């Protein structure tokens, strides 16, 4: 990219006028856009005018386009200098855009460049006869046929210095030339032998439907096995995803919010059951109403109880109460089920605390530590 300016005055033509064809075409083009938005037609119109002017945009042409579309000159000038497809300097009758981007370069575009430099001269230079000029461009998207050039509107691919020289000779002499690959290759088919998809079965039609056949065979075998079995009920057709496209709220079991909701429901249930009891009920009666008493030991195993105070939330008082219930060991607490948790919670008048402080989980951890 370089700073782009209008061509110098000595090459600028004195006048410009739209050809009748372009004039008619422009009318149709401009009609596509809403009133007051005629300026939208600037790029197609400039492109057309560039074609009419021999591949470049003289100053008078820019101004004519601006006048036609009621745009300030500077606005058209901005567009023309922005897009590199608009040439502001004269180009040859055959305007060669040589791709020099990596894939082409790896496949030999440097050789092509050498040919161009030898035959035409430096980039942006028009030959004395006005036939050729060239420019290096970025990827033209034909990497599979690298190296390649674009001459006016056509791609010429798979070039070698020899074939490119011949192509230029033909163009210069006005002989017909072949567009596309200049080798034996057809479009972008593989060069030389085919190396993939070589199995002829792929192409004789035998492969088509082979999977279906296998399914049919399996089904027949199954039918043979269950000959006595009753005819299976015709499957009701279900959409694969009944709620596809609809907003559906599904409970997620493990989400904290979900857990909280479950606990809340349980607490309500507990509260209801407790409310049904007489006020004089002992903690044990209350606990029996909502849960199941965990089985206790008569005395600690091996005569030595675990230090239950290590569980966060269990102090000396609670430890004594738990011991009174026959709970001496971490593993006992770790084994509590839901009903037992509720029972102990109610018994200690600590509804919900066991869950909040995670006694069971703590106990499980301490128990596993004890073992190791």
């Amino acid at each position, binding site marked *: *990219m*370089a*700073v*782009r300016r*209008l061509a110098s005055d000595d090459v600028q033509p004195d006048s410009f006028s739209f050809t009748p064809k372009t004039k008619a075409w422009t009318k149709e083009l401009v009609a596509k856009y809403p009133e007051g938005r005629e300026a939208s037609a600037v790029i197609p119109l400039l492109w057309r005018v560039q074609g009419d002017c021999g591949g470049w945009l003289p*100053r008078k042409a820019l101004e004519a386009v601006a006048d036609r579309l009621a745009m*300030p*000159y*500077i*606005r058209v*000038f*901005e567009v023309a*200098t*922005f897009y590199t497809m608009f040439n502001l300097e004269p180009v040859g009758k055959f305007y060669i855009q040589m791709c020099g981007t990596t894939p082409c370069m790896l496949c030999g575009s440097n050789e092509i460049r050498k040919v161009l430099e030898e035959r035409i001269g430096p980039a942006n230079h028009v030959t004395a006869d006005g036939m050729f000029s060239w420019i290096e461009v970025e990827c033209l998207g034909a990497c599979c046929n690298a190296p390649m050039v674009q001459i006016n509107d056509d791609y010429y691919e798979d070039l070698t210095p020899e074939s490119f020289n011949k192509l230029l000779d033909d163009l210069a002499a006005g002989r017909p030339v072949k567009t596309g690959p200049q080798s034996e290759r057809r479009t972008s088919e593989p060069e030389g032998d085919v190396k993939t998809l070589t199995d002829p079965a792929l192409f004789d039609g035998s492969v088509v439907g082979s999977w279906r056949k296998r399914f049919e065979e399996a089904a027949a075998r199954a039918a043979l096995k269950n000959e006595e079995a009753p005819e299976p009920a015709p499957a009701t057709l279900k959409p694969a995803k009944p709620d596809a496209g609809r907003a559906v709220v599904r409970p997620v079991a493990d989400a904290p919010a979900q857990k909280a909701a479950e606990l809340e429901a349980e607490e309500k249930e507990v509260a209801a059951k407790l409310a049904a009891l007489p006020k004089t009920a002992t903690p044990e009666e209350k606990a029996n109403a909502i849960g199941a008493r965990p089985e206790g030991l008569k005395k600690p195993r091996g005569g030595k109880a675990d230090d239950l105070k290590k569980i966060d939330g269990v102090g000396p008082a609670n430890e004594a109460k738990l011991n009174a219930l026959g709970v001496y060991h971490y593993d006992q607490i770790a084994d509590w089920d839901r009903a037992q948790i509720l029972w102990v919670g109610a018994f200690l008048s600590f509804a919900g605390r066991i869950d909040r402080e995670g006694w069971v989980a703590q106990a499980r951890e301490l128990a596993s530590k004890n073992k190791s």
Partner: protein
Amino acid sequence: MTKIIVDGIEIEVPAEYTLLQACEQAGAEIPRFCYHERLSIAGNCRMCLVEIKGAPKPVASCAWGVRDCRPGPNGEPPEISTKSATVKKAREGVMEFLLINHPLDCPICDQGGECDLQDQAMAYGVDSTRFHENKRAVEDKYIGPLVQTWMNRCIHCTRCIRFVTEVAGVPDLGAIGRGEDMEITSYLEKAMSSELQSNVTDLCPVGALTSKPYAYNARPWELTKTESVDVMDAVGSAIRVDSRGREVMRVLPRVNEAINEEWISDKTRHIADGLRRQRLDRPYIRENGKLRAASWPEAFAAIAKAVSAAKPDRIGAIAGDLAAVEEMFALKSLMDALGVKNLDARQDGTVLDPAHGRASYVFNPTIEGIEDADAILIVGSNPRLEASLVNVRIRKRWRMAPLPIGVIGEKVDLTYDYAHLGAGPDTLAEIVSGKHSFAKALKAAERPLIIVGQGALTRADSAAILALAAKAAKAFGAVAEDWNGFGVLHTAASRVGALDLGFVPGEGGLDAKAMAAAGALDVLFLLGADEIDVAPGAFVTYQGTHGDRGAHRADVILPGATYTEKSGLYVNTEGRVQLANRAAFPPGEAREDWAVLRALSDALGSRLPFDNLAQLREKLVAAHPHFAEIDAIAQADGAAALAALAKLPGKPLNEPFASPVTDFYLTNPIARASTVMAECSALASGARREAAE
């Protein structure tokens, strides 16, 4: 209104605000280069980056709407951070990129000291560069005689392009090329053709566009800044006069939303060299047909001799277009004391007269009120040349939503679309009678605006035209309870003040044209009156600032002070009283004009009853109380004025209107002394010739 949290402060802003506006409202300062509140949003400098909680990367606050922000997960208002480490780092990155190609030439840059880039580099810049390639080099462009370009310094904010396209309405500038090769230029380096082009030097946040006439003249910190008002036209733009010592170095705009927003015309800005050239710095007396330097007593004695030999009805006084209210009041008092009835401030012969009421000669809708109008009829005016900033307002209104605008007069480029209804009074008559198609648009409008220019009011048939315009205003309901859409557009800064003072012929007195005629008077006082040709015969005393037309005709010259050299009241075309402050002192023996007249009154034996400016103003306010209310517009009875105007006699002639301003750059003696204005004028007339071809 939407809630938004900026740096922990919760505020409520309209949903259509941008984040930048919301942040400013919350008191956070956002650096910016491309954003300007009076231009469209470009969002290309990226300096205004802020962090939105939840957004993956910083966003450009100037181009991000408050309503585009997502609320928090539980519906909390969006949270913006303008001071976080991310924001600082992002802005530092932007600054580093900006400085990659910006030359390190602050010591020789005219923007130094008032440069946004310099200031913001202090906050976000780093002290060294990591860029070891070559800097970009860009050819400087010619874009006119007023704006110097230093294109290496350009950071591509495109403010200048947006200004000339949107505000000035003359799309001369553009950005050509792309990426690193993008350059700001005009088409083939033609000079910009807008009369507001110099505003781009204020808009340019770096030193890429600087003032050409002011190049290398001064540094901003050397200048004494004086807030004042402009007198180049009757708009009364708010200006800041920057002076160094005795010399006015430059004029810059000040913000006044009611008048000029923050733009000024090129004439207002680049007049500074005219304040130095061709100045009258001592009294002169004509002897044997030649002017010779004299002392003040000599000059006064010569005047006293002439006055004592003349009868009061053979004496007259004409006030010029740049005179302040104070000196006109002093001159009127002096003439009253001498029993002189021949007074006039209307050199151009306009028919406006205080007798019809104040609403008959001011721009009643006010300049800000133009934005409320829903149909505009311009009669005999080219507002672009006569009052550029009124034209900017009309364009601003037109850009908000196109409205019917009709022009009767010359067909010129006003920078907005309008219907050219006709050239002369017959079209106006057709509209008044409702026959013209534009009458329907005016009738449908709730707040029609009728602008009458001096091109329609300085003719032989102007009384009839004024009556027609008043009838039109009445017919289309331009004057209602809360709207007065009848506006007279003046071209002279002193005019409304003079009419307020009643500086018009007394009973049986001659008007300006009659006074200037051959043999009408024996003694004529010209108070800075340069726009009138006085026929030979009378003894002419010219009190003024420049060796211009009036001084050439004078028999005695009394040197006075320009608007930057005196404290004076000016009343703009809206009738707004404004105070111009003294920024410098008059050169040589020149004195403030009221003081000259006070001294002269002594010599003439009828001493004026004040010894200083405060006493003069006391007397002035006692006689005309509304002069006490600076920056205010005194209420005037619009309906009564219209009724009075509608009764004016006469029959309109069938002659096209022509604007009194033919050369925008040379309308007064100060402008005619300025070389910058001369260059602009030559360029503009060249462009006019080219357009005519």
